[in-house]
């Protein structure tokens, strides 16, 4: 690691996508930002930019953020063509300015996919993911007192794989990175997490079919196994999940009910 003093401030040339609304024409606007501290996170750098814009009476850059500790999946921007920036396994909020040098030009764009329309500047509408989850990404349980510990034995390997899949924060970087705008990595993580665990078995066949049909209905693209989704994933969701999704989908087609209601996102109640 380069040891840069916190006092060394940088000047950056930013090219930021500005778009007034969902139907407005957008374009990249140039901003020169002085006094960037290398210890700042990328979002803090944008905060500084926005403060300066506000003081000048201009509209600040709209971008999504929430936890700023890399676990909520809110931040959604493409930095120099890379979703969440150039660092591997890192959300944009956990990207720090020490990875940039004085005088560097940084291009910041919103996630691009038909299923994620731009609402304003860097903010995109990711509710398509919510509708995919609503279509089947849950388990139906009878609530009551909590079950006894170890009442449901789960093999260590399965628990690990399920947990790995469950680390998906649903940020949409996979869709943003994909040249087809496909959501396979996201859907595969959500399907895998439940298909691997005993609690997910009851709705296993129905779930994968409904989620895949909803994914298609939301205008996500088709997977061509390029693998840039896994490269861009801040949580390192593996491509093996996509293979599992393909398997689960085929299994559902072969062994499942003859047809499943297509994509309105409603809970259809009891499984087949």
């Amino acid at each position, binding site marked *: 690691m380069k040891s840069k003093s916190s006092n060394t401030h940088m000047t950056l040339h930013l090219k930021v996508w500005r778009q007034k609304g969902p139907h407005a024409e957008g374009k990249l606007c140039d901003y020169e930002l002085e006094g960037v501290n290398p210890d700042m996170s990328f979002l803090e750098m944008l905060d500084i930019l926005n403060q300066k814009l506000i003081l000048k009476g201009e509209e600040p850059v709209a971008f999504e953020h929430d936890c700023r500790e890399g676990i909520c999946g809110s931040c959604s921007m493409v930095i120099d063509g890379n979703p969440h920036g150039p660092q591997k396994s890192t959300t944009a909020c956990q990207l720090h300015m020490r990875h940039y040098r004085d005088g560097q030009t940084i291009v910041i764009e919103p996630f691009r996919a038909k299923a994620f329309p731009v609402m304003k500047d860097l903010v995109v509408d990711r509710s398509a993911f919510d509708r995919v989850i609503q279509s089947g990404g849950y388990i139906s349980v009878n609530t009551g007192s909590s079950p006894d510990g170890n009442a449901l034995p789960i093999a260590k390997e399965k628990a690990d794989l399920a947990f790995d899949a469950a680390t998906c924060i649903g940020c949409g970087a996979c869709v943003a990175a994909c040249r087809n705008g496909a959501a396979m990595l996201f859907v595969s993580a959500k399907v895998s997490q439940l298909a691997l665990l005993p609690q997910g078995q009851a709705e296993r066949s129905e779930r994968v079919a409904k989620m895949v049909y909803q994914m298609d209905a939301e205008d996500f693209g088709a997977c061509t196994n*390029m693998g840039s989704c896994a490269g861009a994933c801040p949580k390192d969701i593996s*491509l093996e999940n996509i*293979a599992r999704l393909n398997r*689960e989908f085929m299994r559902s087609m072969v062994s499942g009910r003859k047809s499943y209601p297509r994509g309105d996102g409603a809970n259809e109640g009891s499984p087949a």
Partner: protein
Amino acid sequence: MSANSSFLTSTIGKKYLMALTAIVWSLFVMVHMIGNMLIVVGAEAYNNYSHALTSNPMIYLIEAFLVAVLLFHAVTGLTLVVRNSRTKPKFYSVTPMREKSASIASRTMIYTGTATLAFVIWHLITFKFGPTYFVTYNGVEMRDIYKLVIEKFHEPLYVAGYAVVMILIGFHLFHGVQSIFQTLGISHPRYNKFFKFFGYTYAVVVAAGFISQPLFVFFAR
């Protein structure tokens, strides 16, 4: 909507169709490449092999099957490309880096695939429907395809064009063959490296094998 029709119209179902049809043609090009290696052995071996294949009445069935599978693969691939161009309306102004990017082979499947289809048509016109010479071995008259191949492989432009197309087919297989495993859901942490290695090697072997034949004829026959 029946389960089958919804399966076939889904993006994953279409990918299954791509993979299954890809298996047929991946096997075909490998077998074709190995069979053609008889060019090194000599005219009689090469012509006898060709005669054994073309004189079998099953050949029409197999040819029809291969053509149907190829067209099916091309049309399904095209529908996926059209869908994907709609679902990704705009690319970024900067090209992504390293693992966040996509390999050249995976990005150019439609182009290498189109080139392959065009080549197959050209290839059939050149050889299958090309000039017919005859030769007789042990009293059996058969087509002297060897003579035509030797003729063609002595044209420098033909050899160069052939080599370029084989490189493009190699690129197509490079992404395609290892991709079959992933699409069919054949994946396991222990074997995934092998699947990739197998796919890459398969592509290189097929392309290098096909390129070696015109070069051999051009320089040594």
